[in-house]
């Protein structure tokens, strides 16, 4: 399989080219690659996706873009994660209060504990992401001789599955915990109000039929029993 052109290489040469454009530039050799190709077709022509990040470094952004495109692949339902703004969402969350450990008890001493005791890392969520990305890339280099974003889409899917199932062991980072945090944050970005940078054009809400934030159903609760409520969703962004 030929190498994917890589976001970092493109950044060096052409600046802000989207991951979808990159994917379209390579031949599809597998189902996941085909999905990546579909991304190019499904991506809206107007309103280019921002690839400007304030927390993520270029290699980290390349990782997150590739990861969210595998977690939320492009298909006829929505564009891929990056084109839905999910990487942007994650960057902003990591740069903001949540990433900095807001509303978390951060005092020691530290002990691993058991999973039912919850998050016990001394790292803030932003630091945890940073460590998790580095450890995943180290794992990919060791096992596949390339960093995560340079793997084929199929290889990326396999790495993520191995992390999810605990088959891959990252050095220094609890693998399944990091995967779960990555997945959870990606899903938040996909489904949260577009005001946070993800769920671009309310694609995720349109996909499932969630009408958004006006939500006055005093009459509809009676008139829409067993009946689809088809409306253009409205977001905080639309109403502000």
């Amino acid at each position, binding site marked *: 399989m030929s190498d994917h052109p890589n976001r970092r290489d493109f950044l060096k040469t052409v600046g802000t080219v989207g991951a979808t454009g990159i994917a379209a530039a390579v031949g599809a050799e597998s189902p996941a690659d085909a999905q990546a190709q579909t991304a190019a077709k499904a991506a809206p022509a107007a309103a280019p996706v921002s690839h400007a990040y304030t927390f993520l470094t270029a290699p980290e952004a390349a990782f997150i873009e590739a990861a969210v495109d*595998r*977690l*939320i*692949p492009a*298909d006829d*339902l*929505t564009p891929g994660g990056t084109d839905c703004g999910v990487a942007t969402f994650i960057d902003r969350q990591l740069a903001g209060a*949540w990433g900095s*450990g*807001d*509303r*978390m*008890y*951060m*005092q020691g*001493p530290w*002990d691993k*504990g058991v999973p*039912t*005791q*919850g*998050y*016990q890392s001394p790292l803030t969520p932003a630091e945890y992401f940073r460590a998790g990305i580095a450890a995943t890339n180290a794992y990919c280099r060791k096992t596949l001789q390339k960093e995560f974003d340079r793997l084929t889409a199929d290889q990326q*899917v396999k790495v*993520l599955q191995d992390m*999810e199932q605990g088959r891959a062991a990252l050095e220094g980072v609890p693998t399944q915990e990091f995967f779960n945090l990555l*997945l959870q944050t990606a*899903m*938040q970005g996909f*489904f*949260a*109000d577009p*005001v*946070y940078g993800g769920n671009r054009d309310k694609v*995720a*809400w349109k*996909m*499932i039929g*969630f*009408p*958004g*934030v*006006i*939500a*006055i*159903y*005093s009459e*509809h*609760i*009676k008139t*829409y*029993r*067993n*009946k*689809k*409520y088809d409306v253009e969703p*409205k977001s*905080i962004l639309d*109403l*502000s």
Partner: protein
Amino acid sequence: MATRLKEVDIVIVGLGWTGGILAKELSEAGMRVVALERGGMRATNPDFAIPLIRDELKYAVRNALMQNPARDTLTFRHSPSERSLPMRQLGSFLPGEGLGGAGVHWNGVTWRWTGIDHALRSHYEHRYGKAFIPSDMPVQDWPMTYAELEPYYDRFERTAGVSGKAGNVRGVKQDGGNFFEQPRDREYPLPALENSYSQMLFRDATLQAGYHPFPRPCANASRAYTNPDGSRLGACVYCGHCERFGCEANAKGSPHITVIPKAMAQPTFELRTHSWVTKVLLDSTKKKAIGVAYTDVATGQEYEQPASIVALCAYAINNVHLMLLSGIGTPYDPVAQKGIVGRNYCYQPGGGGVTLFFEDKIFNPFMASGAFGVALDDFHASDQFDRTAMGAVGGATIAVGQSNGRPIGYRPVPSGTPRWGAEWKKATAKWYLRAMNIGVTASNMPNRYNAYDLDPTYKNVFGQPLLRLTYNFLENDRKVVGYVAQKAAEIARSMKPASMSNPGTLGDYNIVPYQSTHNTGGAIMGASPKDSAVNRYLQSWDVPNVFVVGASAFPHNSAYNPTGPVGALAYWTADAIKTKFRKRPGLLT
């Protein structure tokens, strides 16, 4: 150095439902009342205005209205042999902070507890024999009967604008209400809300099966309502942003739109926000409280507020924490089984619910109210339900609500679906509108090892020990959940879904995923200081001018939400202070 302030008649710690009720009742009776609230001010407008209040990420995921664990949290372990570690992020439960407390962000389910709950040990010993109650399960009767508390339940339902349908008015059964409820003096203040399609299907199926479905009582106003105090509530608009949010329509019975503004209209009432009480101050005998110490968290200034009476009206967990930090009562030791304060911590085992998927039905899960629902009490309040087959104390309610159809948190897919990728996406798109859930809410009986004490290692921002929680679900809980989950699954199968999830089972307690904010016990009420921290007026046996109000007083947890009796007990305690303690301070009998 703390600044000593002018003495008042009563200082109230925490201004949610219980603090708000005491503040209103006692300031209207002419007492000088100061309320200390650790969080900030809040008002429906602008704090809960559309569109910003419809922000699932901010309110439901990042917990904007809740306590901040960075300042104070608790540590947790399953058993005394394990190392307790801090709950570093909120998860399993969500104590509120700020004016109105959890009364702002609750869903509004408002039960009166059963006759069995009020006389738990007596009932089981009489019906099943003493040996039926395991020796490590310290269940006990409430120190007042249902009949004694009935007028106070009624009072709270009137205040909060509860919608429902009576099942028993003065002993006369009523069609459509809860067949198994205790007698009520009168109908609910408001008729039940409309039903969702899922609730209608459930009602039909359960009637067919011979059960007794009824509208779940709920403090979401089914129409505009003015309560007996003149507070005005709007009608619920079924917005689906109830629990964890404030209500922009003022349709959710909440203290910040009812009792608190009434207290604030009294010249003898004063509210201080951002005021964090660190300790109840006792005199040298340790038998009398002289006031409280608090820190203004906005300035860092420390104060002493002297008062003739101290009322702990914080969240149930924090009431117990303050008692232990202040040396009120004897701390409980689960190994020696000595002491009182901290024992009988209970929670709410879930896990018995089932999700149903239909190819041909549309449920619109976003059209939702916090508490509306169709419920069954056949496996809980019903004395006809023989617990012998289940082999356990307690029971569970089964209900179909429809309250949280928001897309970050609610994305049902059939079991076996991957959590991400193309297949996950297709399933999510297909089933979001086409799934419904039958919930099972189980009671929780106390166990000698399920308890609070002070953590030996971890501290809060004031340098005080965190509370330590030792807790797990036990055999009795697994039997209850397992038994009633099968009943729920039978109902589900009769509804003929295309597929359904497997009947739930109960594993170990996990403090990470949200389950309920139904933490009870720790400062339990009873008839004797030998087995309780507070008496029937929620008055400390050890320091009689301290009242400890809230679910901390429950000796066990019912298969119901706690707020109904929490509100009733607050009115009951306020009455006792007004009519008894004021005339003759000291231990009430």
